[in-house]
């Protein structure tokens, strides 16, 4: 079924009897060409790209819970390509280009909204670092510009310009950045993949790998053994757990990141704003909630929930930056399990086990990567060569000393 405004009108007039399932609920087949473990954004985008771009349709996505229950369903939805390092920026810019055509590709309105992002700076040193970054963006073909204090006053007049502990000196803005509807992205990919023949199998947890002679031949699951020529793992916060079943230790720690939404409000905040002197960033969802977040709680966790000090820390930042939000109320807070890598950058690579591929280490930034990550992982699975934008994301970069460390904090995941 094709979605369109016309279709909505037609169904409205005929009692909505014509809508069909967004995707099927197939039972697993005995074997697939490719199994993707993890029905999050990256797994689904990988399956979609395998089918849509590489013509590989005998594919299953195995998801242990309900589709989209992981980080794709709980992130603060920011998409941007404003990275510094050459290992990263072209990849995220590729992703941004894919976002820009996503609804048309998928025939699903995932509400990609390019309302812009502003990263504020508060010192000259920060400004210089942003200039270096903004230039890297331009060199990769992305957009970006430095905003003066005066320009900021125009765009975001509600910021605390006059009584701030850390005065706002300006900002780096990327206009093509913005947000996308988190759930919609998962559903759009799932539906589009399903339409191209991919089996999406929910409530199917992978509990082990089948190996023969150093080669993976399938997976054990809570719904039985399923054979596969190739297995791609894209399980985000569960990366270490799943790869341990293949005997691998990863340069990854799992941490909790909290996010927050306020009660619904009339439009207040135009795009995304990021505080440069505290842990706070915010955008407003189309429903009206202020969606905001800050920093990791800072300790290893698989609990999908965090502590009160972080709540306070984030909202202190929010109040310092935009005191006009004070009379809004926090509606809900939640947590997600972040696959924090040792340099803050992801891994998309083959493993030392034939037929087993890994995609993970996305930290708090993998939502924006979803389309490109799916593309690059599908490329790797289909061709056994890294996608040109993902060449830096290899396992061996740690041992070789070729880390992609945007923040420059070294092998301490909770600082990335």
């Amino acid at each position, binding site marked *: 079924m094709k979605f369109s405004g016309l279709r909505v009108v037609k169904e409205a007039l005929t009692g909505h009897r014509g809508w069909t399932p967004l995707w099927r609920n197939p039972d697993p087949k005995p074997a697939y060409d490719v199994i993707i473990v993890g029905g999050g954004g990256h797994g689904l985008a990988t399956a979609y790209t395998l089918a849509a771009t590489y013509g590989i349709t005998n594919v299953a996505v195995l998801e242990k819970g309900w589709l989209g229950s992981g980080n794709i369903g709980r992130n603060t939805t920011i998409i941007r390509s404003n990275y510094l390092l050459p290992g990263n920026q072209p990849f995220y810019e590729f992703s941004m280009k894919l976002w820009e055509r996503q609804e048309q590709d998928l025939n699903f309105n995932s509400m990609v909204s390019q309302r812009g992002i502003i990263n504020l700076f508060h010192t000259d040193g920060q400004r210089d670092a942003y200039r270096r970054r903004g230039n890297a963006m331009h060199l990769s073909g992305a957009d970006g510009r430095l905003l003066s204090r005066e320009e900021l006053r125009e765009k975001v007049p509600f910021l605390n310009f006059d009584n701030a502990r850390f005065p706002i000196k300006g900002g780096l803005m990327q206009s093509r950045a913005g947000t996308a509807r988190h759930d919609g992205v998962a559903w759009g990919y799932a539906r589009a993949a399903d339409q191209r023949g991919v089996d999406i199998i929910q409530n199917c947890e992978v509990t082990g790998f089948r190996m023969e002679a150093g080669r993976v031949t399938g997976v054990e699951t809570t719904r039985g053994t399923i054979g596969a020529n190739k297995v791609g793992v894209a399980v985000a916060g569960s990366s270490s757990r799943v790869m341990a079943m293949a005997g691998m230790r990863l*340069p990854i720690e799992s941490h909790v990141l909290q996010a927050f939404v306020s009660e619904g409000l009339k439009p207040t905040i135009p795009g995304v704003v990021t505080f440069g002197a505290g842990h706070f960033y915010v955008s407003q969802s189309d429903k009206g909630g202020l969606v905001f977040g800050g920093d990791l709680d800072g300790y290893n966790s698989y609990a999908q929930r965090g502590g009160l*000090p972080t709540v306070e820390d984030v909202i202190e930042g929010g109040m310092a930056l935009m005191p006009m939000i004070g009379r809004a109320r926090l509606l809900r807070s939640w947590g997600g399990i972040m696959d924090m890598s040792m340099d803050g950058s992801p891994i998309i690579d083959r493993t030392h086990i034939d037929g087993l591929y890994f995609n993970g280490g996305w930290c708090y930034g993998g939502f924006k990567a979803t389309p490109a990550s799916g593309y690059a992982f599908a490329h790797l699975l289909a061709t056994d060569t890294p996608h040109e934008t993902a060449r830096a994301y290899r396992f061996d970069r740690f041992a070789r000393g070729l880390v992609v460390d945007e923040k420059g904090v070294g092998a301490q995941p909770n600082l990335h």
Partner: protein
Amino acid sequence: MLIPHPLLGPRDAQEFTYLGDATLLDRPDPDAPGAEAAFCDYVFLRDNPAGVHRELWFHEQGDRSWLVVTRDTVTHEILGAELVRDVRAGART
């Protein structure tokens, strides 16, 4: 969270700075053959278990002791805490 400090009793976890897996206590021998590979494992690789985890916390806003805290990363329940001083002394004897 509350960290059960072996000397000071339960303390607000905010007084502490978290470092990570307690395997960071086991710095490899820099002179052994293959030291570089051993250091790479030591610096970069983690078990990252979902469950019991021995981890390092520093009582930064307290007595500045490094602690090994044993904590369940799924429930956040704390099963014990020791001073690194005592852990190291134990390892030696």
